[in-house]
C-alpha cells in the first residue's frame, strides 16, 4: 500500500517561500494568484495489506517525524 503524504505550514504561519513565489507569479502577470503555500510531498510504501493498520502507521509517521505539528499540518491518502 502506498501512502501519498502532503505536509504544509499551518494556515496563519508565514510561508516566506510561498510569498516569494506569489510575488513572482504576480510579476509574470498572474495578478489573480493569491495565498501560495509551499509544502512537501512524500510517498511511502507501507508493507501492510490491512488499510486500517496502514492508516494508523502513517498517522504515527506523520506525528513523530514527517511533520512538525507545531508549525505544520499534514494530510495523506492510501492507495
Amino acid at each position, binding site marked *: 500500500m502506498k501512502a501519498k503524504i502532503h505536509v504544509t*505550514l499551518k494556515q496563519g504561519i*508565514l510561508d*516566506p*517561500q510561498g510569498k516569494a513565489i506569489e510575488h513572482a507569479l504576480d510579476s509574470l502577470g498572474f495578478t489573480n494568484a493569491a495565498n501560495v503555500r509551499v509544502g*512537501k510531498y512524500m510517498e511511502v510504501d507501507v508493507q501492510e495489506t490491512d488499510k486500517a493498520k496502514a492508516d494508523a502507521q502513517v498517522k504515527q509517521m506523520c506525528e513523530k*517525524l514527517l511533520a512538525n505539528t*507545531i508549525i505544520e499540518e499534514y494530510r495523506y491518502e492510501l492507495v
Partner: protein
Amino acid sequence: MNVGVIVFPGSNCDHDCQHVFQHVLGQSVQMIWHKETSLKGVDAVILPGGFSYGDYLRTGAIARFSPVMGAVKAFAKDGGAVIGICNGFQILLEAGLLPGAMLRNKSLHFICKDVHVRVENAATAFTEACEPGQVLKIPVAHADGNYYTDPVTLAAMQANAQVVLRYCTPEGKVTPEANPNGSLDNIAGIINSEGNVLGMMPHPERCAEDILGNKDGKLIFQSLLKAMKVKV
C-alpha cells in the same frame, strides 16, 4: 569541568566548541559520536552547529532520533546543563527539550553576519557572567532561525523569563530592523522552564578569544563555568 561535544554527521562547529573549552578555557572535552548511548560522565553537553543529516526533512528533525539523544534527554531531565548552538538549538526544539520550532528566515536568505543580542535574563547558568541588559556582538550563520511558538507558550516563556537573548541594535534597542530572520519577539536564545537547557542561534564559539577580534561569546561559556563553580 568535563564537557561533552556531540558530533552528528554534518556537525561542523564541533571542533570550534572543543577549541574554546579546551584551549581557551582550559577544560577537558570529550567528543561524543552520535551513535554513542552514554555521555561518558560529562558535566555539561554541547550540541554544536552544522547541518546534521544535511538538514533533510527539517533542520534537526533526524538528528533528534540519533542514539545519543536518549542519553542527552535523560541528562537534561536530571538537571544537567545542555547548550544547543544554531543547528544544536534546532535539534533541541525538534527533540522537545525546548518549546517552539524554527521556520525559514523571513528573507529566505542564508544569513552569515555579526548581530547584536541583548541579555534579557542574566540570572541563568548561561548568562550569569553578563550584566542584565548587556549587548553582545555574536555572529549568526543560518537559513532557519525564524523562531516560532504559539501565543500561549510565548506568554508563559516571557512570564518565566525564559527568553534569554533577543536581537537588538548595537545600542541595545529591540527593533524589527535589528531582527535578522523574522524571529518571533526578536528571540535569539531561550532556556527551558527548569533553566538547565539553553538554545541560541548566534555562535558564541566563533567569538571567544582576542585573536578573533571579539570575545563576547566567551561570556556564555564563562557563565557555565561560573554556574558549575569551576575556577578558570
